[in-house]
């Protein structure tokens, strides 16, 4: 896994065939059941399906409740319209049998019976009851046999209706559990045989909800089945879909495992794209590329360093052995030459060890004590310090500066950079020539520019891109002759980069070389 790989790398215990890695893989840890053990595809599918089922169920419930309300209301409306129409007709008719406004009608039971007949239908039972629910008049029909009695109405219905002085409907259940809509309206009083007002009576219209319930039942069945089927289909489709989407992730996991086992040549190689998985794949590959490059650079550096150290060691060991075994045959000039060779090798090795230590210090410790310094003054110091060296080699060292140029730097390290460049220039300059140092402020970029220019043989174009690489020496024999360790420019670059600057070289063969360090300039301290 990638994090495992990273952990290994940061521990610095990475080796290409580290078998211990295998035992540290999460997959071999005793597995406790957890959400992380369920494949992501299944997790997502189940979540999708559950959401789908929930949505369907909510929608169904909403639809069901709405339809139920619609059907019940519709039935109640039908009853209300029928009642109002009948009452209006009765009032319009007038006469002894009509309702006489204002005031409630007072009719005989026979008249009420007639009235109920006019209102009843195939699915509507109509009765006239008194406040106790006792039937006073009824339209005898098939439906009135099964219609619920007024006793199923909520208690106190008569008082409620009398208080409101208008009709109200309820959904009630009969003995068989079937639902009805019962519309009850206070309509008047009974005219008794002695022409006195009888008790208050109510018109009760009861319409069966059988048809509506049948529709609702069908619908409920359909909704439940639909939800279940939807959920199952959701899981199946979700699995297929997520599997397709997650297949690259699976590939990535297997690649990462292979890489963790040491195969750093493996890549995910996702097709180009802009979605998260394509980007993850590309980023992953990029990360492995960089890790591999870093490891390779590290490996090469160690190999180069060991080569660079072993070569002088071999010479030293061999040459000293020659003296010990008397291979000089007592010839003093041979002895002198051998010892001189050993001495030079020791010097070269000392410089090499020094440079390697410097480089590793620059690599491993970030500069901490940045101060604002005047680069002009620093270069003047170096010019003074190196002048005798230049003179000894028959060279001139010139310094050009145009006023103070301040930069943020660690003075010793920046000095090391310039010293390395000057040393390099002095090495390659022909006798009698001059090495030019200059420092200037580039007004357009606000950068300080430190330049060291020589008139030496220049740098071959094929070497130019590599001269800052560690241990890179274009012309080995010449480099050896000049005592170059191949690290001076690498050290310079490493230091300049920790200072947030850049170093570059310009040269063409025969024209000398120009090394330029650019650093962000700052305003001088007060």
């Amino acid at each position, binding site marked *: 896994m990638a994090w495992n790989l990273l952990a290994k790398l940061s521990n610095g215990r990475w080796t290409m065939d580290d078998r211990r890695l295998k035992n540290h893989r999460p997959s071999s840890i005793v597995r406790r059941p957890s959400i992380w053990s369920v494949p992501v595809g299944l997790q997502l599918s189940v979540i999708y399906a559950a959401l789908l089922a929930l949505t369907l169920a909510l929608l169904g419930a909403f639809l069901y409740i709405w339809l139920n309300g619609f059907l019940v209301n519709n039935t109640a409306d039908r009853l209300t319209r029928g009642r109002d129409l009948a009452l209006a007709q009765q009032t319009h008719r007038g006469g002894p049998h009509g309702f006489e406004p204002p005031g409630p009608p007072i009719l005989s039971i026979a008249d009420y019976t007639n009235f109920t007949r006019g209102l009843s239908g195939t699915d509507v039972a109509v009765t006239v009851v008194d406040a106790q629910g006792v039937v006073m008049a009824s339209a005898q029909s098939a439906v009135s046999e099964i219609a619920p009695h007024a006793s199923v109405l909520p208690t106190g219905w008569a008082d409620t209706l009398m208080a409101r002085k208008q009709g109200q409907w309820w959904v009630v259940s009969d003995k068989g559990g079937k639902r009805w809509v019962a519309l009850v309206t206070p309509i008047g009083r009974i005219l008794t045989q002695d022409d006195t007002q009888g008790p208050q009576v109510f018109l009760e219209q009861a319409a069966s909800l059988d048809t509506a319930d049948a529709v609702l039942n069908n619908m409920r069945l359909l909704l439940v089945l639909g939800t279940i089927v939807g959920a199952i289909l959701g899981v199946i489709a979700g699995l297929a879909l997520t599997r397709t989407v997650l297949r690259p992730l699976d590939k990535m996991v297997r690649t990462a495992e292979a890489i963790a086992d040491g195969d750093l040549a493996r890549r995910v190689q996702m097709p180009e794209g802009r979605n998260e998985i394509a980007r993850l794949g590309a980023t992953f590959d990029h990360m492995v590329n960089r890790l591999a490059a870093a490891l390779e650079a590290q490996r090469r550096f160690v*190999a180069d360093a*060991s*080569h660079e150290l*072993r070569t002088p060691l071999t010479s*030293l060991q061999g040459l000293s052995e020659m003296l010990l*075994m*008397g*291979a*000089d045959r007592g010839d003093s000039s041979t002895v002198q030459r051998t010892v001189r*060779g050993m001495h030079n090798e020791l010097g070269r090795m000392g410089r090499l060890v020094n440079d390697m230590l410097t480089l590793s210090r620059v690599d491993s410790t970030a500069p901490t004590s940045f101060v604002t310094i005047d680069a002009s003054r620093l270069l003047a110091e170096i010019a003074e310090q190196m002048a005798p060296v230049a003179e000894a080699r028959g060279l001139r060292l010139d310094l050009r500066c145009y006023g103070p140029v301040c930069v943020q730097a660690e003075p010793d390290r920046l000095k090391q950079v310039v010293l390395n460049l000057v040393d390099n220039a002095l090495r390659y300059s022909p006798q009698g020539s001059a090495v030019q140092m200059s420092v200037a402020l580039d007004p357009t970029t606000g950068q300080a520019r430190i330049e060291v220019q020589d008139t030496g043989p220049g740098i071959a174009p094929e070497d130019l891109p590599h001269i800052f690489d560690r241990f890179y020496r274009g012309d080995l024999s010449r480099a050896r002759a000049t005592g170059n360790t191949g690290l001076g420019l690498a050290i310079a670059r490493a230091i300049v980069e920790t200072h947030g600057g850049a170093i570059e070289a310009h040269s063409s063969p025969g024209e000398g070389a120009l090394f330029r360090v650019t650093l962000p300039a700052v305003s001088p301290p007060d």
Partner: protein
Amino acid sequence: MNVNEWQEQPDQERPISVLVVDDEPLIVEMLTMGLNYEGFKVSVATNGLEALDQAREVKPDLVVLDVMLPGIDGIEVCRRLRAQGDVGVLMLTARGELEDRVQGLDSGADDYLVKPFTFKELMARARAILRRRGINIQKALRMGDLILDRQTRRVTRGGRVIELTPREFDMLELFLTHPRQVFTRDVILNRVWGYDYLGDTNVIDVHIRHLREKLGDDSRSLIRSVRGVGYGLEPSSEAE
């Protein structure tokens, strides 16, 4: 032991030829000095192409070949040397990682040495390669009627077997391989007792006395004393 056996030696007039290929001048100088001293004929190349040219020209018995060479590297040189003809190859590598070793041997090298190495070890391996290839470094050393067999470590003089201690044998071998050369006591100590021997050089005088007694060299005409310098072998008047 039949004396005639020694006459079947390969042509002792032609010294064994070694080609040294390395781009480090000091290592080349050191190897040239040492191999010359050990009695080899040494030629030198400092890069791959030069090595191949030299190999064609001098037909060396052994090539001491550095892996890291400018131009074509040692591995490739070795491969081409093998294609050119049969020659012993001893590779020198500054790396020594397993991968490089296998690659070096795959390319046809007989053996390899990881830098830094001691010259002693290089000689031991060079001799082993030459022996495996049937090229003997003078199995028997002789001077007059004195014969030293390196393989059986037996010394005879005029057919008479002389029993020598290992130190005495090594000393006599040193003298016989470098006739006429005068060795200082220090050099003898280094060569026979080893570099890490910290004893007195007087031990040499004692061993020389014993050696002379055993060889019947009473007149000191065989092992010569050079006053103020050391000892050396004087090819006798009865020379080859």
